[in-house]
């Protein structure tokens, strides 16, 4: 077998052996493979479907030092009603905020639900945790950070891995931290917040590292693997996302389990998002195109999709101000 399940305890020796035994990546070939998907087109009726699907996969994000309760309320409203003129548009998958903003998001969602227009699914609230974005704090602080957000009502936790530990070869540290944060995601009633593990691929630099970090996160029990924090310039790219999709594809073959992928940062246009959809469908299959298995971490993407959607329906360009800003 080209890839086998990890064997033995997650000691650094075992992890190193395992990760370094993964097949190598040829960067040129990888990028040419991506170029092939980019040329695919989605036309006609499937385009409307695709645009709605993109919206339902978005983690609408605000991660600013200047975030306020008001900003969070606005974000939740936008997430629930992307376009006030067309209530057939699905809501986004989640809003993604800093941990201390979770209570305001929960409150906003709660108010919203009381006088809402009956939507089947509940808008998820995701919180970044573990000393986001750098991850530079002690494990105790990271765990407290996570517990805090979960206690405040976060449905999902977006944690960052310790890139310093990864780059210096301390894979066990990265592994143990993911395991510990996953434990901290457990609520008092025994249920658990969904754990997304951010690899921050821009700092890992090579595709081989991205593959290793993906497998490390998968082995440690991630529910989702996510490309980036969005805080450094090299964020989600097609090749990096493809490497991660291939990891979850092979993980499914190996274990039967489906793990999600979330490209985040730098996805701003509908065209770009459509390319991601094609890549997902072609690599792991269309079954991955659900909020449980694929997300876009983005802020400005939503409105670009809405403009496209209107243009598609009316056949005319839209006025920028027809769409609400969040």
């Amino acid at each position, binding site marked *: 077998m*080209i890839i086998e399940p990890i064997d033995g305890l997650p000691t650094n020796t075992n992890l190193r052996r395992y990760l370094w035994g993964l*097949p*190598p*990546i*040829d960067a040129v*070939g*990888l990028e040419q493979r991506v170029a*092939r998907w980019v040329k*695919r087109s989605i036309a006609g009726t499937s385009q409307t479907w695709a645009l709605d699907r993109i919206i339902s996969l978005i983690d609408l994000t605000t991660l600013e030092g200047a975030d306020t309760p008001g900003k969070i309320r606005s974000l939740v409203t936008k997430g629930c009603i992307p376009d006030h003129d067309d209530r057939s548009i699905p809501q986004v998958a989640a809003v993604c905020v800093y941990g201390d903003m979770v209570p305001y998001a929960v409150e906003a969602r709660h108010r919203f639900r009381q006088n809402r227009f009956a939507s089947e699914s509940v808008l998820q609230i995701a919180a970044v945790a573990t000393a986001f974005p750098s991850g530079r704090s002690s494990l105790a602080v990271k765990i407290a950070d996570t517990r805090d957000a979960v206690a405040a009502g976060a449905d999902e936790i977006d944690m960052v891995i310790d890139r310093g530990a990864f780059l210096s070869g301390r894979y066990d540290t990265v592994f143990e931290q993911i395991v510990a944060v996953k434990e901290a995601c457990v609520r008092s009633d025994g249920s658990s917040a969904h754990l997304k593990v951010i690899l921050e691929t821009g700092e890992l630099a090579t595709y081989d590292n991205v593959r290793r970090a993906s497998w490390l996160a998968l082995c440690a029990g991630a529910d989702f693997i996510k490309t980036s924090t969005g805080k450094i310039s090299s964020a989600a790219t097609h090749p990096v996302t493809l490497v991660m999709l291939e990891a979850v594809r092979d993980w499914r073959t190996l274990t039967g389990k489906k793990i999600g992928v979330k490209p985040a940062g730098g996805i701003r246009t509908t065209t770009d998002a459509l390319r991601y959809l094609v890549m997902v*469908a072609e690599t792991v299959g269309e079954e991955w195109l659900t909020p449980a298995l694929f997300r876009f971490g983005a802020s400005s993407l939503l409105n670009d999709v809405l403009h496209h959607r209107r243009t598609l329906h009316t056949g005319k360009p839209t006025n920028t101000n027809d769409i609400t800003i969040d």
Partner: protein
Amino acid sequence: MTENISIHEQHHNTNLPEKYGNLINGEIVYEKDSYPVINPANEKTLTTVGKTTTTTINAAVNAARKAHKNVWSQLSGSERRNHLLRIAHAIHDNADKLAIAESLNSGKPLTETRSIDIPNAEAWFFYYAGWADKLNYAGLGAQPNALGTTAHILPPNSSLLAAACTVAPALAAGNTVVVKASATVPLPALVFGEIIHNIGIPPGVVNIVTGREDSEQLLREHPDVKKIVSIGSDVHSDGARTHTDHRTHTDHRTHIVCDDAPFDEAIEGIVNDAFMRRNRFTARSPLVFVQENVYDDVVERLKHRVRGLRVGDPLDTNTDIGSMNCRRDVTYFAQVVNAAENEGCERWDTGITLPTNGLWLRPTILSRVSISSPVVRENVYGPLLIVLPFRTPHEAIRHANNTRHSFCATIWSDKASRAFAMADQLGADTVRINTSHSCDPASPSDIFPLDHAQHKTGLSPYVQNGETV
């Protein structure tokens, strides 16, 4: 996703004129008698082209001879360079038209003709434009002399690229040309003729005629044709070849997948080579040697990838595999695959339902093949992969070299020192490491190993005494 093939109503503007003519002495000339050109995807008639007569062939050669004597040989290298650049620009400006013509008539997906055939055809003219004014540097003597008029017999597959790859160096070296389009796939060459007939190239420098084997025979026997360049598989007869014959290689392709390969890239590269980028003028389905300790896994991964390929309308931009363009290839494919199955090979195909009209084949993988299986020696053209196991790099080399044909090889391994050593020992013209892509006028390539084996610029076949200098 790929369960059924639907041939869509074409979205592109493909309204073709009722007939296409030959390009002779700068004029589009129509023949009295014509025959239909078929769209291999649905076997409907696309348009008609003339049945070229002896008179026409003579007129074409005559025009070329005169143009060589009176015009082309009198021009400076710089002027010839500018004409070649003009052709390159014309290809660029009409890329879509050419790509659609090629796809409609040959069944090759538009994505490929658009992204590979046409840009490369353009690149070949650009590259050789740069040689027209520096022939004295080409290592062919201080002032290499052109042959005169060369005739180029095009294959049905990638015919435009085939034309560019041979016509560009021929023109750069100072020859004038008569191009004979493929009998079944004449459209790309004829559209090319339409495009270049009014861009200011002196009349008679490029002439394009249609026709079957008889036209070719006429060209072969014509005393003013100084060289026949026949590319690929359009020529099936073993007719008498004159000393002027210059035949480019049949390219056989071999992949060697070592156990330390970048597997995702290897799978994609092999699938591309076998099923998609069939930008080969003629090609046996590739042989894939896989190290035995990863054999089963690689075969599974190949199947998984091939299952995702879309077979369908060549003009649909999401199509990976179009149709075949030769009935004989389709029948022969079935024969060979059935025989292989009876000889103990494991046959797998995607199981898709094929349309009743048109020349279609299912992507097929033959595994459990050994080097002594007869199928390894077959020349079958079609969407087929033949996968064989090997134990050690040494064995892979021995097995890959066990052929009388020249071939090109791709080694998939992360260990460069081993790959270079294997490259040394393989009897291939071109060895690629971790890529199946290589088509560039600046590099000797498996497309024209003969040209380049003798001289790296690819100009030598088109000048006097070129081969011996």
